[in-house]
């Protein structure tokens, strides 16, 4: 009996022991079993085929497809699936095999910085480029490949980007590491209004700030349950960037009044403060949306306008506003104000932007195969243009009787050809394609507002005619800014600058007093350094 018991006890102990062993084993197998599958996905495709690269150099399509890893942000839903039909076609025609890592744009910066810091940089990697301190620092540490010679070798790539932009991408030695993703610098944020409501209330189309204000007052006084003026899908003062031009402000650095050889930030320009505090005044009077600067969801203004609950909107995407508004208010009509005239006769226009929004680097470890990569890029801008730009006929576009390629709307495409499948495989589009009126017209046709197209184009030209620039070269960075800039901004300015629209008691004087503190804490030094470092202080021109 006793013996039996101890035997049982021993058995139990043996069982316990084996349980622990199993647990430990599972821990370790879990850790090691994926060694082979995971290591090949990122950053390591470069080493393995360094040898056969030399033979593959001369032959075009017959060589082994170029394998590389590629990280980029995506703006849409992250529903990309590897091995789709479009991808197969691109791989075949371009003779590549791309391992894409997509990261939703919200999370891109934090994620890619961790990946880079973890020493796992992919072969081709998106980032902000030399305009951003983090990326500039990495570039200076030697993480990326110098590309000057490839640009000379492959003219299609060089020509895709305006020479002035390449200059900005180069460092002090003239070395270029970064291929910018281009945007067209003229992005007018139209001031759109409900023409039907204006007509009903007998208000003529405003041509100046003063007239706009009185129109808003009339709308408010009319007793209609409608917000006089709201804003598009961004932060308030940026949504009104083209309204600001009528105050003479370009919402960016501009020559100082006292010394034309000096440039100063917007916070030091009376014009810019006039604009900001005018908007505050409008809000105080109930003429500008009470949710501006309050609602954490930036799309509230467009939502309101679409539902027919706002009369004027600063910015906003016409191509989506119009059809949606028609669903709510069938009789609605939208028109756009011509650039306004300011209170002192300033002529409004549009604030243009630096024509780059991120871009990509090539990993320095990818050097051996870089030539083949640039060959692929070059192909995508020459023989591969049609596939890159329009996709596959019948699946992504149709050809109309006039021979124009008409894109098929996203929701009518098969899964493999939807935008979310194409976007991850994009690299560079030339500046020459950025302002494509033909494509714009087709978009208007697609949205069912064909008749609005000529009007829209005319307005675009009116706004573009008077361009306001940011005089600061985005590639110039002040050491003090990098060192303490964000902190002194947070300490002295963040609250004041961020609460103009929410703290109605905040005055221009209080704002200036806070800014003075910021200047004293180091802000002035930043401004001086930038003036010191930026030799050319003339108005930039990105449009030509």
């Amino acid at each position, binding site marked *: 009996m006793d013996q039996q018991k101890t035997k*049982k006890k021993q058995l139990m102990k043996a069982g316990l022991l084996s349980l622990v062993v199993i*647990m430990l084993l599972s821990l370790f197998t879990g850790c090691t079993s994926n060694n082979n599958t995971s290591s090949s996905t990122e950053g390591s495709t470069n080493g393995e085929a360094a040898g056969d690269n030399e033979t593959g150099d001369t032959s075009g399509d017959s060589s082994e497809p170029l394998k590389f890893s590629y990280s980029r942000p995506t*703006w849409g839903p992250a529903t990309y699936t590897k091995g789709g039909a479009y991808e197969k076609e691109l791989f075949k025609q371009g003779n590549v095999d791309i391992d894409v890592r997509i990261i939703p*744009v919200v999370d891109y910066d934090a994620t890619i910085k961790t990946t880079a810091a973890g020493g796992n940089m992919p072969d081709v990697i998106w980032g902000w480029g030399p305009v951003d301190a983090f990326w500039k620092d990495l570039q200076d540490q030697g993480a990326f490949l110098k590309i000057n010679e490839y640009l000379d070798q492959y003219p299609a790539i060089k020509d895709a980007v305006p020479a002035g932009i390449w200059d900005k991408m180069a460092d002090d030695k003239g070395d270029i590491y970064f291929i910018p993703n281009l945007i067209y610098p003229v992005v007018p944020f139209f001031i759109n209004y409900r023409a039907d409501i204006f007509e009903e209330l007998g208000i003529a189309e405003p041509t100046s700030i003063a007239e706009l204000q009185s129109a808003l007052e009339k709308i408010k006084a009319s007793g209609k349950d409608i917000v006089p003026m709201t804003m598009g899908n961004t932060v308030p003062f940026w949504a009104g960037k083209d309204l600001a031009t009528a105050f003479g402000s370009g919402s960016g650095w501009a020559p100082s009044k006292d010394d034309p050889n000096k440039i100063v930030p917007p916070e030091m320009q009376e014009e810019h403060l006039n604009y900001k505090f005018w908007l505050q005044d409008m809000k105080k009077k109930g003429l500008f949306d009470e949710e501006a600067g309050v609602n954490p969801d930036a799309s509230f203004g467009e939502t309101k306008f679409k539902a027919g609950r706002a009369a004027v909107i600063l910015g906003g995407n016409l191509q989506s506003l119009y059809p949606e508004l028609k669903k709510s208010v069938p009789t609605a009509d939208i028109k756009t104000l011509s650039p306004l005239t300011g209170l002192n006769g300033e002529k409004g226009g549009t604030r243009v932007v630096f024509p780059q929004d991120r871009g990509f680097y090539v990993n320095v470890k990818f050097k051996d195969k870089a030539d083949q990569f640039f060959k692929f890029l070059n192909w995508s801008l020459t023989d591969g243009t049609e596939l890159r730009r329009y996709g596959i006929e019948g699946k992504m576009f149709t050809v109309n009787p006039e021979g124009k390629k008409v894109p098929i709307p996203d929701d009518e495409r098969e899964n493999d050809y939807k935008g979310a499948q194409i976007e991850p495989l994009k690299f560079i589009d030339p500046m020459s394609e950025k302002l494509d009126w033909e494509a714009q017209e087709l978009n208007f046709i697609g949205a069912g507002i064909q008749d609005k197209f000529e009007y829209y184009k005319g307005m675009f030209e009116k706004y573009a005619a008077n361009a306001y620039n940011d005089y600061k070269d985005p590639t110039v960075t002040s050491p003090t800014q990098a060192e303490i800039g964000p902190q002194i901004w947070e300490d002295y300015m963040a609250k004041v600058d961020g609460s103009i629209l929410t703290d109605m008691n905040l005055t221009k004087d209080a704002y200036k007093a806070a800014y003075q503190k910021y200047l004293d804490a180091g802000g002035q030094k930043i401004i001086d350094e930038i003036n010191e470092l930026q030799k050319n202080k003339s108005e930039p021109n990105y449009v030509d």
Partner: protein
Amino acid sequence: MVEQTAHATQPVSELKFSTRRSLDANPWWAQSLIYLILIGAGLITLLPMVNVWAISFSEAHEIYKNPMMLWPKSFTLESYKYIFNTQVLLKAFGITVFVTLVGTFLNLLFTATGAYGLSKTHIPGHRFLLWIVIIPMLFGAGLIPMYILLKNIGLLNSIWVMIIPSLVAPFNLILMRNFFWSIPESLEESARIDGASDMRVLWSIILPLSKPVIATVGLFYAVGHWNDFFSGLFFISDNSKWPLQMVLRSIIIDFNMLNMGTQNTNTLNDSSRLIVQPENIKAATIIFAIVPILLVYPFLQKYFVKGIMLGSVKG
């Protein structure tokens, strides 16, 4: 034997009262008040869900007019069609289910053994071992060394990265350990006198008594796995291995929302490129992603039954 010890633990001295009224239930007014408060609490928490549910079945332009609907307007299944046509979502769903099931099982295995061991406060070095568990609750090394570690042990880009690095949550371990700790030592001792081994004690005395805490901790782990997008985001580069929450996140979060108060005007150029998903698709994705995990709790509630009798356990 065991019954006796169970009785012995009762704080008998506290139970001597002068009144002999035997009241099984609360007075009617107290009971009604409790029901009223509970109904109120239920309504308040139910409404947001009903709102999301209603939006998911409505057409987009109706939502602009009145986002606070509690019943679908212009009923449509469009958004659910979108979801079930999106392969990635379905695949991500499968991955999340796998990670939740396997992960929770392994979590409980490791946590329960560790917690039981640490509940034995008499072993030498107990305090030291306990601190080994407490410190990770307070200090973390940060993302970068973790990333490097996972790279070195080959866990990157494997779905096990959502399971193994989060095998034991210190909080859950301590929770469970305190439950084990509060089980009267006398119960175990009497079993040992009857000749039961450590293993036997854990298996047939401690675990049956701890069903509620195991269910709770299991729920915590399961929900943790279900809601985890973080490991997918940082440690899995192949999006075909992403968990559901990661895909969900890319659908429901507008870039602009996170942009408030930044100085970088470059970032602001993004607004023109963002593809904002319609509200009904966002809502449907939320419903799709949370309904399965919502159903887990009612199922577990049977382990929360009141009144497990310590005395009924046989040694």
